[in-house]
């Protein structure tokens, strides 16, 4: 296996609320290499965004990363001093957020918001920074970037704003970009354009990309590998083709099944019964067992990640076999 850009080992992020401890991220491990795209899939509240924030060192109190290692180029980010970590953020790791209407500061001009991102990490003149900002806007396909630089965010459409956010993420040529559902709030056509460009940018520049989403169809066309998260844990991991064609975990199977497809038109839509459990003081055992048709007494124990097929991992006592999927 090649040297990974980012390697996360046994990450745990807990929230210490007045009502109890919320284990938002529990024993999460994965790695992503240069130019590769990792899809992090799960429902809202599954801990996928919090995994992203944990890597960035942006978990707010009462939350805290309590255990694990976050290795960027072999160096554990958790051991860095706050100011060293600040120099990593936006420089070696960049993040893009879900709602482009909210991520750009409404009262600051786009050039201000781009220049400050450059000058926070490099001692460059305003003019040089401005030039880099303009190039970055051009690279993400914003027409007449010179004029757009002096505009305010509300003068852009949603798709254009997300392109600006992506341009800001690219400014310092990071090794890793964490994209937290960046296309969810956009129209389908614009979503397609942005997906295409992100994929191209990652491949060309050798940037590693973690794409966080709840939308399996986005991941299908974009990612190389996929991690499925449920209740703060990774329940399945493998290449995109393997996981989507032949899921091992009942939850992954349920997720894929609940996507409406043309092949099953007319049949009632399938759904996963029940609701995601509250992460507050979650009881031990498989968190999915209450919604799982295959659950039995064994599931009251915590299942470990196992590798029934080479190159794949699943956290289940009763993984699906190939015949069960069909």
């Amino acid at each position, binding site marked *: 296996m090649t040297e990974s850009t980012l390697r996360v080992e046994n990450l745990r992020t807990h929230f210490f609320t007045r009502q109890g401890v919320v284990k938002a991220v529990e024993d999460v491990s994965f790695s992503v290499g240069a130019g590769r795209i990792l899809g992090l899939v799960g429902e809202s509240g599954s801990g996928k965004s919090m995994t992203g924030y944990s890597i960035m060192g942006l978990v707010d109190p009462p939350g805290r990363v309590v255990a694990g290692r976050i290795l960027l180029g072999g160096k554990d980010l958790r051991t860095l001093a706050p100011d060293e970590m600040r120099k990593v953020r936006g420089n070696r790791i960049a993040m893009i957020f879900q709602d482009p209407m909210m991520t750009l500061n409404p009262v600051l001009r786009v050039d201000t918001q781009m220049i400050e991102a450059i000058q*926070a990490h490099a001692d460059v003149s305003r003019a040089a920074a401005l030039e880099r900002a303009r190039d970055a806007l051009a690279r993400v396909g914003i027409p007449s970037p010179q004029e757009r630089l002096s505009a305010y965010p509300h003068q852009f459409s*949603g798709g254009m704003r997300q392109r600006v956010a992506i341009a800001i993420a690219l400014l310092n040529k990071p090794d890793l970009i964490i994209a937290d559902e960046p296309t969810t709030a956009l129209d389908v056509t614009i979503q397609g354009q942005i997906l295409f460009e992100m994929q191209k940018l990652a491949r060309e520049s050798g940037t590693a990309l973690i794409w966080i989403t709840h939308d399996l169809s986005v991941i299908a066309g974009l990612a190389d590998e996929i991690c499925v998260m449920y209740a703060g844990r990774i329940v399945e991991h493998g290449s995109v083709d393997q996981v989507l064609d032949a899921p091992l975990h009942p939850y992954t199977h349920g997720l894929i099944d609940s996507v409406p497809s043309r092949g099953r038109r007319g049949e009632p839509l399938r759904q996963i019964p029940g609701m995601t459990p509250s992460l507050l003081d979650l009881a031990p055992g498989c968190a999915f067992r209450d919604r799982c048709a295959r659950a039995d007494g064994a599931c009251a124990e915590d299942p470990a990640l196992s590798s029934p097929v080479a190159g794949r991992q699943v956290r289940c006592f009763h993984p699906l076999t190939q015949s069960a999927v069909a």
Partner: protein
Amino acid sequence: MAPPYMGILHSAFWTLIFSMPVFIVRRLMQSVLVLCFMSLLVFVGVYAIGNPVDILINPQADQADIERAIAALGLDKPLWQQYLIFLKQALAGDLGKSFAYNIPAIQLILERMPATLELALAATGMAVFLGIPLGLWAGLKPDSWPGKLIMTGSILGFSLPTFWVGLMLIMLFAVELGWLPSNGRGPTTELLGIPVSFLSWEGVRHLILPATNLALFKLSLIIRLTRAGTREALLQDYVKFARAKGLSSTRVVGVHVLKNIMIPIVTVIGLEFGSVIAFAIVTESIFAWPGMGKLIIDSINVLDRPVIVAYLLIIVSLFILINLAVDIVYSLLDPRVRISEAKG
């Protein structure tokens, strides 16, 4: 085909252009209405409830003087004509002479105005320059003990009556400690022909206690606004994105947070300036500050009625002007207001 957002931009642009003058004209008309209404109220108060002869004519005047004044004021005419005469004279700047000072009431009030404005500006300045940093602190660290202390202080600042705090300030700093004067304005220096206190050290010493007293309520208000705005802003994605860009926390707070909360704060400061001038009545009375507020209370106590009438009309006009100015400035700051006003 043009992208869909062009249509929205386009219509917003035209709404803006068309709504500007309409908005200002509408506000101006409202202001004139309010002024008419208030002048009517003052008129009714003076002419219909009280006896205008008592109110407007010096009790020391002899019979011939009184009759001449009745004819001059048109008190023998029907009420609606009297109102018109009253309005005409008010517009001409003639609201009678002060009994106590024997100079035109309007002139008397205008002479006292700079003292009040200086006090109000000093208080507003104090409230802003202390309130915003304290509010930021309380907003950034709401659970720390300084954060809690600041909030408790601002709650007290809200519920304590201004005059009571003023008395305590005098008792502590003037009587017990003897650090600061509590009485009057001290020596004044001319600045562009206007007498001001803040240019001499002695003047500043006289200004400190009354300005602190007057500032306290607004200080509490600005602390609360800033704190609430900061806490709100910190939850926004743009703050998280700014941090994700690797900006220092100084820049995140000083630029990204502060710039966003300044719009409501500036508006409130403007809107509250009128109420600072109104509350100056109390502070000026306590600290014997020779402004319009002390003048009106003194005039009420010696029944110097032309001054009372003139003060009421001037303060109401001042208020309407301030409200109008703030409305216009606010509409310039925030396009959403203009658009909703144009529709509404």
